[in-house]
């Protein structure tokens, strides 16, 4: 002992070990102990990644996978259509493929069309689905190629889309924005996004506590044919198998016996191995089986069979119970484990494994699983949802076809030879309309899987570029929003790098709607069989050869592939290492993940779709594999991101494998155990949160608020914004890119399509009109264009044709000198439509349409055009602000109806009450607009555009905003843009240095003089540029008051809501106040006289309501009294009467 410590002490003094000269040596001017330089510009991997993947690659990848692979798989599974009538007949689908988007009318001159044309003309951007078929016609087999069976809406920028691979100039020709990410559909002229759906992963065992705090293990089986849930539950300390198709819980030993494991010893071994603790817990179950007197498989099957819920639809001879049970166990229970030739071996081991996991959890050997863990989640994308839909539609198509075929073949004598091809062509548009209906309504109704989900698709929000982008990365959760559980809403540590930590809405959907982080990829399904082969080649022993004793030996790890057991290995580390090497060498797909679960002693491989993964730099022997040379080559465009993958420098990790790795955030943090290095830490944020400068200095809710507000900011929307005719379009007149950028801003192109302006802000109190976050704006700034925006609104109408041959018409305005003319016709052109650039005042007509008064009845014979009468249906402009006709579009839709769209433009300058926000969740409304000469100014004569009240800072703690001001000011003075990238960005010390060099205070504060008195302010003012966004909430759209106005027909009370010029409600609480105050006459006036006062005549005798001084009940007018009651009350009395309830008014002191 003593000598050992001595040695150590000597080691502590390097001066005496004889290696000093080596340590002093320098090489190439560098000391040996000098720190190794970090890799510079490592973040360049990110643009390289986005170049290949793009921001919405997950949608596009998924759609492409559907078109290229899933479609063919579905057709292959439903390949043959036969006839019950003619056994010789068959129809076989040989192949299926999708064409490019084309017009539906066959005789069009140029077949392909652009997405933009579809948007403008309210068309669906879709392409034909073609099949190659083989069928019997008469006595010959006929082959036909390229038979169209329906149309598939095409995702923009997917393989089929004509925009894919086009250069910026080519896109400009197609009036398409190069920055638009695609990934959505255009259905009936509306841009629709299929949101990413989050759900629990399928075919994986989840062990958790049920409501009664008992352990249960459940698995959601999902195959092409079937979806079912199987659970192993604990009830009264006994273990049961629970499944929906079995009416009662089955004791586990019975279930095992039914699956062919008859010996108690074998059951015990399969479940407990040689663990006596587990055996003690389990033995009671064996006793239970013997109590039930079930010893053999036959007995067990009979027992289960008596409890199976038989599907009554399939009529036929009743089968023995045992057969029924065997079928259910083989195909329905644990459906994802295949049973071939009634070989239940794999399934019984799987079930045993589930029981074992339950026992381990009961025994507290292993913790229960966390179902909120991101690794237990799978994301369902457009492709998967469409393939579900297509499978359903295709099956329906085939069964309809079969019915038709049978109908024709039943006829003994046919006029012509039967050809299925004609049937297919004439079969209608079942598939087309199915797709269009599902995407445009968002309702996915699949009877086969009992699936009825609403709200799958959403209209792509085009409020700003960011809102569209944010929508494409959005993930919707399947959880009900009303449930008040915090678990699924909480921020999960496993979200790191996969899901944005900031971007989630506030309120009911908080934490349930998430967003993808910047550098993520969502996998698509990968073929299992090559992986299976590789696993066995790497030395895994097949599970079917093993007994329970071997399965659970202490050094054995069970290998799973996508949740099903493959086998075991005794050398887990080596196996995993070997497998990873194969993956890095590209022998298996880079998206196959592998990780060791030490608690459960399993190795899990996943190749299924919907896992989120992200690239990381591989670290080996404390060194990142990516070197400076690689990065330099990347910058010089000698290497692409794909090369990094191929060379095994970078690899994708999914959430599970990420948790099994040791990832260093920065290069100096690498320790001997490190396996990976982060590419850039700011990629834990998503595209929307990436806009915030210095988010790591803000209080976290502020970043979340900004994520919500960034989507409401008015700015540039797309390069084709002026060609678009959207329902509502907000455009900023002079948008600017922010002075303080982030790397994310450059990567997503926010600097090219910004939404905001760099305002000079003075943080000070001014005038008292700035309390509660109100802002003071400089009038001269507004004069010069600050915050000015254009609002474009679409007004559309159809010129309809009616079945009786009549049609709507557009009518020219009356002659200006005629009596009929008035100023509302001023904007109209001779064609009855307002011409572009004409001003529209409130009430102006912009489409002078007339509708035939009779659209139903057939016109009599001989009645000419002259006899048709029309009634006017002019479309009038309503807004109080003058609008200008920007564009008029006259076109036809798919159904050959004439469509007219008029785009009306308003230009608005900010006014009192308009909403603004900085990028730090600090919103405020304009409280006062001040003349420039009254504004405070600095010693350089600079006046602020905005004065912000300093009380906004202490409680909000948005330090990032202050640093943004500092960096922005330094940027202005140095003449360059500064960076506020998360976890990095320009340093405050550097910014202060620039300020000092330019003769400013390092703190960003300025000497400011009052514009009113000319005296300097006694305090120094924090003064500089901050990027401000103008939000879409503008006073003009909200302002509302009414004196008199329309009333609802039923109750005669004032209408509700601004759009109907409604009244302002004096509600219950306001009523209570007035009652408390005793203002009864005021109440009477507000609630009745100003609302729905109505005079009725009441009979004093019978108390019933009469009419015109006559009581119909008493047949007398003697005792009639008139009184005022609310019309709603009169309505109530009459409605009660209609229900046979007599209401009598007992009059007290009637006059």
């Amino acid at each position, binding site marked *: 002992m003593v000598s050992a410590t001595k040695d150590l002490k000597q080691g502590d003094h390097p001066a005496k070990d004889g290696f000093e000269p080596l340590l002093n040596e320098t090489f190439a001017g560098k000391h040996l102990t000098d720190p190794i330089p970090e890799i510079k510009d490592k973040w360049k991997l990110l643009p390289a990644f986005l170049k290949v993947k793009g921001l919405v690659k997950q949608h596009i990848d998924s759609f492409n996978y559907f078109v290229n692979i899933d479609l063919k798989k579905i057709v292959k599974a439903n390949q043959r259509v036969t006839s019950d009538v003619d056994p010789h007949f068959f129809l076989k689908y040989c192949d299926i493929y999708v064409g490019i988007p084309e017009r539906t009318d066959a005789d069009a001159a140029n077949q392909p069309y652009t997405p933009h044309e579809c948007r403008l003309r309210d068309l669906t951007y879709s392409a034909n689905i073609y099949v190659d078929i083989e069928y019997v016609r008469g006595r010959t087999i006929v082959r036909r190629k390229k038979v169209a069976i329906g149309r598939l809406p095409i995702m923009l920028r997917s393989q089929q889309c004509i925009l894919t691979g086009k250069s910026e100039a080519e896109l400009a020709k197609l009036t398409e924005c190069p920055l638009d990410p695609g990934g959505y559909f255009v259905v009936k002229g509306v841009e629709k996004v299929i949101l990413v759906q989050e759900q629990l992963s399928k075919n994986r065992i989840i062990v958790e506590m049920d409501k009664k705090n008992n352990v249960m293990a459940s698995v959601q089986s999902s195959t092409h044919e079937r979806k079912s849930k199987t659970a192993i539950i604990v009830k009264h300390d006994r273990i049961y198998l629970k499944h929906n198709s079995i009416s009662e819980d089955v004791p586990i030993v019975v279930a095992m016996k039914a699956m062919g494991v008859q010996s108690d010893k074998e059951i015990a071994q399969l479940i407990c191995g040689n663990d006596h603790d587990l055996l003690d817990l389990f033995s009671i179950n064996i006793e239970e089986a013997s109590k039930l007197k079930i010893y053999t498989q036959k007995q067990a099957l009979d027992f289960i069979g008596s409890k199976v819920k038989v599907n009554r639809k399939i009529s036929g001879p009743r089968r023995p119970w045992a057969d029924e049970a065997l079928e259910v166990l083989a195909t329905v229970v644990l459906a994802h484990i295949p049973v071939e030739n009634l070989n239940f071996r794999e399934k019984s081991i799987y079930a045993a494994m589930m029981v074992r996991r339950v026992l381990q959890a009961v025994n507290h050997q292993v913790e229960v699983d966390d179902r909120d863990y991101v690794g237990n989640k799978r994301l369902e994308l457009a492709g998967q949802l469409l393939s579900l839909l297509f499978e359903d539609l295709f099956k329906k198509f085939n069964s309809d076809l079969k019915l038709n075929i049978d109908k024709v073949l039943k006829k003994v004598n046919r006029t012509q030879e039967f050809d299925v091809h004609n049937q297919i062509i004439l079969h209608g548009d079942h598939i087309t309309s199915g797709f269009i209906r599902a995407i445009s309504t968002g309702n996915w109704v699949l009877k086969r899987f009992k699936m009825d989900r609403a709200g799958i698709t959403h209209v792509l929000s085009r409020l700003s570029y960011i809102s569209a982008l944010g929508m494409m990365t959005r993930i919707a959760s399947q959880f009900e929003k009303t449930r008040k559980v915090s678990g699924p809403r909480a921020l999960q540590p496993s979200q790191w790098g996969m899901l944005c930590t900031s971007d989630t809405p506030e309120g009911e959907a908080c934490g349930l709607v998430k967003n993808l982080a910047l550098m993520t990829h969502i996998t698509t399904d990968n073929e299992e069989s090559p992986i299976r082969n590789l696993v066995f080649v790497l030395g895994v022993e097949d599970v079917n050869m093993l007994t329970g004793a071997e399965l659970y030996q202490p050094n054995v790890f069970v290998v799973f592939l996508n949740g099903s057991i493959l086998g075991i290995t005794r050398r887990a580390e080596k196996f995993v290492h070997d497998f990873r090497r194969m993956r890095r060498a590209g022998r298996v797909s880079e998206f196959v993940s592998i990780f060791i679960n030490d608690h459960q002693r399993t190795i899990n491989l996943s190749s299924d779709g919907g896992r989120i993964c992200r690239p990381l730099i591989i670290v080996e022997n404390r060194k990142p594999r990516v070197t400076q040379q690689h990065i330099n080559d990347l910058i010089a465009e000698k290497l692409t991101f794909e090369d990094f993958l191929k060379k095994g420098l970078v690899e994708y990790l999914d959430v599970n494998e990420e948790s099994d790795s040791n990832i260093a955030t920065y290069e100096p943090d690498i320790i001997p155990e490190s396996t990976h290095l982060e590419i850039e830490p700011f990629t834990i944020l998503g595209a929307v949160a990436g806009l915030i400068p210095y988010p790591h200095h803000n209080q976290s809710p502020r970043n979340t608020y900004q994520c919500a507000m960034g989507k409401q900011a008015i700015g540039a929307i797309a390069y084709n914004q002026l060609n678009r005719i959207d329902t509502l379009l907000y455009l900023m007149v002079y948008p600017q890119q922010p002075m303080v950028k982030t790397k994310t801003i450059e990567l997503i192109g926010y600097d090219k399509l910004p939404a905001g302006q760099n305002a000079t802000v003075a943080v000070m109190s001014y005038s008292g009109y700035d309390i509660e976050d109100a802002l003071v704006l400089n009038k001269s700034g507004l004069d010069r*264009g600050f915050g000015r925006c254009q609002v474009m609104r679409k007004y559309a109408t159809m010129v309809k044709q009616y079945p009786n041959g009549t049609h709507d018409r557009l009518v020219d305005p009356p002659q200006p000198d005629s009596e009929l003319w008035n100023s509302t016709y001023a904007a109209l052109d001779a064609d009855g439509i307002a011409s572009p650039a004409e001003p529209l005042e409130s009430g102006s007509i912009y489409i002078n349409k007339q509708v035939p008064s009779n659209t139903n009845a057939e016109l009599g014979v001989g009645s000419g055009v002259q006899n048709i009468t029309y009634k006017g249906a002019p479309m009038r402009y309503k807004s109080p602000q003058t609008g200008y006709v920007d564009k008029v579009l006259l076109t036809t839709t798919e159904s050959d109806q004439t469509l007219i769209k008029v785009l009306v433009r308003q230009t608005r300058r900010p006014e009192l009450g308009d909403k603004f926000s900085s990028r730090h969740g600090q919103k405020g409304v304009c409280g006062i607009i001040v003349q*420039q000469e009254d504004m405070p100014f600095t010693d*350089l004569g600079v006046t602020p555009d905005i004065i912000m009240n300093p009380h906004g800072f202490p409680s909000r703690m948005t330090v990032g905003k202050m640093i943004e001001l500092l960096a922005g000011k330094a940027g202005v003075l140095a003449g360059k843009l500064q960076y506020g990238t998360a976890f990095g960005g320009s340093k405050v010390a550097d910014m202060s240095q620039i300020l*000092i060099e330019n003769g400013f205070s390092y703190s960003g504060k300025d000497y400011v003089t009052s514009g009113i008195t000319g005296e300097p302010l*006694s305090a*120094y003012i924090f003064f500089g540029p901050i990027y401000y966004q103008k939000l879409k909430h503008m006073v003009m759209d909200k302002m509302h008051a009414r004196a008199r106005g329309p009333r609802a027909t039923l109750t005669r009370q004032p209408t509700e809501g601004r759009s109907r010029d409604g009244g302002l409600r004096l509600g219950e609480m306001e009523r209570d106040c007035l009652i408390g105050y005793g203002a009864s006459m005021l109440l009477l006036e507000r609630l009745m006289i100003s609302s729905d006062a109505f005079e009725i005549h009441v009979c004093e005798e019978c108390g019933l309501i009469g009419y015109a001084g006559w009581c119909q009940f008493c047949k007398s007018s003697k005792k009639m009294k008139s009184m005022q009651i609310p019309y709603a009350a009169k309505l109530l009395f009459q409605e009660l009467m209609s229900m046979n309830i007599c209401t009598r008014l007992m009059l007290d002191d009637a006059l």
Partner: protein
Amino acid sequence: MENAYGTLSGPNITIRELQKDKISFILSDTDLSVANSLRRVMIAEVPTIAIDMVEIETNTTVLADEFIAHRLGMIPIESTDVERIKYTRDCTCSQYCSECSVELTLHVKCTDDRTRDVTSRELISSNPQFQPVLTDKNDSGILIVKLRKGHELSIKCIAKKGVAKEHAKWSPVSGVAFEYDPYNKLRHTHYWIEEDEKKEWPLSKNAALEAPPDPNAPFDYNAKPDRFYFSSETVGSLQPEEVVSMAMKTLLDKLAYVQMQLKEEVDMKKQDHTSWGY
């Protein structure tokens, strides 16, 4: 001749720098209120000429009509002879006439296959005294809109006289810097410091024009500011010295107007008294 209210000789102006579009001067021996009034009038009440109405005949450019009209309004117009133009409200005409307005026309069509810039150079004025401002011969003018092949812009602009109180386009200056007491001898402000005032607060340029205070001198609480350092940059519509002199004239006019009002009031009151027969 100094006393507590400054010199009796009245206000002085010393011009320190005069460029084409910049002026920097010291106003001394006057009160803070006078100096600040001058600053405010320079910004907001010196009349200039700016495009106020735009009649658009053809606009097939990418920009909307209001957009172009707004841009045109911001173009500075040579306003040295602004006195010759009346305010429209003072004019006898119904809408506008040559007495109270200047007409500028612009007609550009792009026929080439490349982008054509339309600038303020292409505005043709009906009155040669009122032209869009150009700094020199090589000045390409202010960009109004860019055209592609087939785009056309044909407009008639009516420029009118106005003041920046109404709209910032009539402001002759882009800003007025104004300072007094660079050493803060009067203690009108409080320096916010962490450690050392001298280190943390850079002195303004104007400090070179005053003697640094004696750190041991007692605080003179009777002192009044009397030297005001102005500097201003014009937008080009007026020469910088014109801005200052016109600002003073405007101030004078305003005072004269007040004086007149006062006189009228006094006369009225006198008449009232006499008529009541006291």
